[in-house]
């Protein structure tokens, strides 16, 4: 096992992330067959029930099972998080690395566009665009979040690429006759992987939070269940005022847990990128054992 994976922080983060992924993949099957609850079933005989043996996390104002909904919400939230992170990371690489590596006119144009997106009030714009497009499904929401959220990452990739471009090993390969496209893919990009994966994780939780925020403000598809739509429904039906804590706490907790997981995994990426961090941790552990 790689040293970075032995780090307990990384293990904890990976375990949480794995749980969310499993819920997204097999949650429906699990709810129906193991819990006996369908997240979409409305049961007006048991509305606003606190947790009980039958409904482990209680029911909503429409009598839906909160646990089944929380499990089903993992898919919606995770899909938005992953798809928006993929889009924003890809755009960030495209704009940042191209601007940083090729310089000149390409840099001027790409950097201008990047700056434009940085100064735009992203969340407000996302809200307007999402409201303008009717029938906003999960994928549309993810697309909007991704398209408006890449600029910050592009800036740091551009700076890092500009620094790498001038390094001796890149210049040396160039003097051997290597083409510029190959230089980008074989000399520059591999050295950006730690930064890119950290950016990606950050974008995943950013996407989940943005989706929750949009859903909370009412921009979401009425047919899909996500943690954001759950919180919005709870808010609409005054769950907080009425003290229905079992309704809004589970999705909130799940979002926080996923955020924590990405943060914890990031520690491992830091260690891979900078082996001295891992060495320092192991030295500290040995010192503790020795004492």
């Amino acid at each position: 096992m790689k040293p970075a994976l032995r780090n307990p922080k990384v293990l904890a983060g990976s375990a949480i992330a794995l749980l969310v992924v499993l819920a997204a993949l097999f949650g429906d099957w699990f709810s129906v067959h193991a819990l006996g609850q369908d997240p979409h079933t409305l049961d007006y005989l048991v509305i606003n029930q606190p947790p009980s043996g039958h409904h482990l996390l209680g029911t909503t104002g429409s009598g839906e099972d909160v646990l089944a909904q929380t499990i089903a919400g993992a898919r919606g939230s995770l899909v938005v998080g992953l798809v928006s992170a993929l889009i924003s990371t890809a755009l960030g690489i495209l704009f940042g690395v191209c601007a940083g590596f090729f310089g000149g006119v390409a840099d001027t144009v790409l950097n201008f566009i990047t700056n434009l997106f940085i100064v735009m009030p992203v969340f407000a714009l996302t809200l307007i665009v999402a409201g303008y497009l009717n029938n906003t499904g999960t994928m549309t929401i993810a697309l909007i979040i991704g398209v408006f959220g890449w600029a910050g990452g592009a800036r740091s990739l551009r700076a890092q690429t500009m620094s790498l471009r001038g390094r001796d090993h890149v210049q040396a390969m160039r003097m051997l006759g290597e083409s510029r496209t190959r230089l980008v893919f074989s000399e520059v990009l591999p050295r950006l992987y730690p930064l890119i994966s950290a950016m990606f994780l950050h974008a995943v939780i950013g996407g989940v939070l943005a989706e929750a925020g949009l859903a909370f403000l009412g921009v979401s598809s009425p047919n899909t269940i996500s943690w954001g739509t759950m919180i919005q429904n709870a808010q609409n039906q005054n769950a907080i005022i009425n003290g229905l804590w079992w309704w809004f706490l589970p999705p909130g907790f799940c979002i926080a847990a996923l955020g924590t997981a990405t943060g914890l995994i990031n520690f491992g990426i830091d260690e891979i990128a900078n082996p001295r961090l891992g060495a320092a941790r192991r030295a500290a552990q040995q010192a503790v054992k020795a004492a």
Partner: protein
Amino acid sequence: MTDLKPDTETPVLEAVAATKHFAAGGATVRAVEEASVALHRGRIVALVGESGSGKTTVARLLARMYPVTGGEIRLDGSPVGRGHPDREYLRRVQLIFQDPFASLHPGKTVLHNLERPLRIHGHVRDRAEARARAAELLERVSLLPAKEFLDKLPHQLSGGQRQRVVIARALAVRPAVLLGDEPISMLDVSIRLDMLNLLTKLRDEEGLALLYITHDIASARYLCDDVQVMYAGQMVEGGPKEDVIQRPAHPYTQLLVDASPDPARDRAADGTADEDGTTLGEPPNLADPPSGCRFRPRCPHAMAVCAEAFPPRTELGGGHWAHCWLHADGSGVTTT
């Protein structure tokens, strides 16, 4: 060691009155002024000078990493273009960087580093052939047993081993000219001699033309055939190494030679450079250099004419030349 410079033979690579000015925030840095250097097959030319004298810029102009502001670069006697060099040019001319720790990608194996130039220049057709050729290259730079080094990553190698890989990588192209930009200055003292012997071997056995850039006169004297001395972007003196180092004509060369410890050298009793080093002073700001000869403010022999114009090249016999007004009238004042 022959003192006969093969003037009849066309140099493989030549800089003719090459000038480079850099724009730096409104100011113009006059890094290199009308510097000429000729590299011949089977000869090593050392370019000596202190930090900031423009040695590296000359090497990079020769490698066409950036275009000349004035003058020209000639390959086999014909002037080259101004843009990024094409593969034909790179196949003839290769540059070795100063820092072997920075010039290898930390995530790429030795094999990858050697395979790429072999592939780019069409010297191999498949992986197996690339592996065999790469092993041969490692043998040529005495990295043995070669097969064990092929799959290593740079961090598994010492500085000297890395620099051998860097040289092998440049040789993979099968160049006619190697430009070494202080190739041993980042290496441990104990392995510098091995590297110098390797460069000598490449000159003698393969007839490479070499430019050896250094600030260390002793290593230049050990390795090269000819020495050229640079100061603040200007070539001040050059010629066969023993002439230049034993009988330096230019006051700057005299200071430089005296500043380098060498028990074997016949040195003048007066010691032109004082022990406290006050005569050495500071090199000028190249954004606003002194007029005429740029060594004038530090020169113990400075005259009125030195401020007016850069002195012309004076032949001192046997291929030895200098740019100094002391010698321009033929009086030939030498202080050693």
